[in-house]
């Protein structure tokens, strides 16, 4: 189930600023309280796919005392896609909640 939403989760992490792959996977783990503990390598096909779709951009950076890393940033298209993803998820979550009997009837 997580895989279906991985692209939106990655976009959401990058909303707070550019980051490299390791930092993104750490942020996903931290934000989910350890619930989303997916194989770390899974993030790279997603990053590549999002970059191919022009939702992310990337550049190589080398900090003064560090190793060379590819840093990803959200593009304008990526921000728009994230906003759409949030709306879609909100509708879906409300519908599931209603179906499971935990909330009001949907749509309200």
């Amino acid at each position: 189930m997580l895989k279906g939403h991985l692209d939106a989760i990655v976009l959401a992490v990058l909303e707070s600023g550019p980051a490299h792959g390791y930092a993104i996977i750490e942020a996903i783990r931290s934000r989910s309280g350890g619930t989303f503990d997916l194989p770390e390598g899974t993030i790279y096909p997603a990053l590549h796919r999002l970059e191919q779709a022009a939702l992310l951009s990337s550049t190589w950076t080398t900090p003064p005392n560090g190793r060379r890393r590819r840093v990803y940033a959200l593009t304008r298209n990526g921000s728009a896609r994230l906003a759409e993803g949030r709306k879609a998820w909100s509708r879906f979550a409300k519908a599931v909640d209603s179906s499971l009997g935990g909330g009001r009837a949907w749509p309200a």
Partner: protein
Amino acid sequence: MAGVIDRYVATLTRDLDFDPALARRMADEVAAHLWDAAEADPAGPSPEAEQRAVARFGLAREIAAQFAADAVNRQAKRTWIALLATVAVTFVAMRLRVMWLSDVGDSLSMLAPLIDRYAFIAAMAVGAIGWFAFRRSVLPLAICLGTLAGSIAAGIVRAGLFVEGAPLHVLLAAAGEIALIGLLLCHVVGLGRFLRRTALLRRPG
């Protein structure tokens, strides 16, 4: 002697050999990730920390299979666009030939006009079915390629373009459809290669 991370990166690079540029990029990117992970290990950098970093990263083969599946999707999209362009240019070239032939009289062959027309219609029909039902399959694209190539060859024979003088626009349209059928062939072969690679990476063991 190569360490755990170096060996893992070498394996991933080999599994990504269907896209050499991607393989080079991932080699650097994944190595940086794994060294970061090994250095962040609570026990500190060690061969065991490298092993744990690699284990958390996932199987190289499965990651390469995800890249290959994305490559199939992109290649399928490019191939369908190439098919659409080939159909459009073939149709225009066919109409130009028919208009020219209506002025100068039809061809040497009785069969060529039939092949020209019905092979084109067959390509359209197979293309439409393929688009709706088998978008990631190479078979409908290969059939379209074959039937369009047949239609183009028959059209050229029909107009006798290789033996008689023809207006420049008719010759240019024929050159365009030949160029596009070549491009389509390259895309279909590329799609077949990506599909085979994805199947191999997903095969257990």
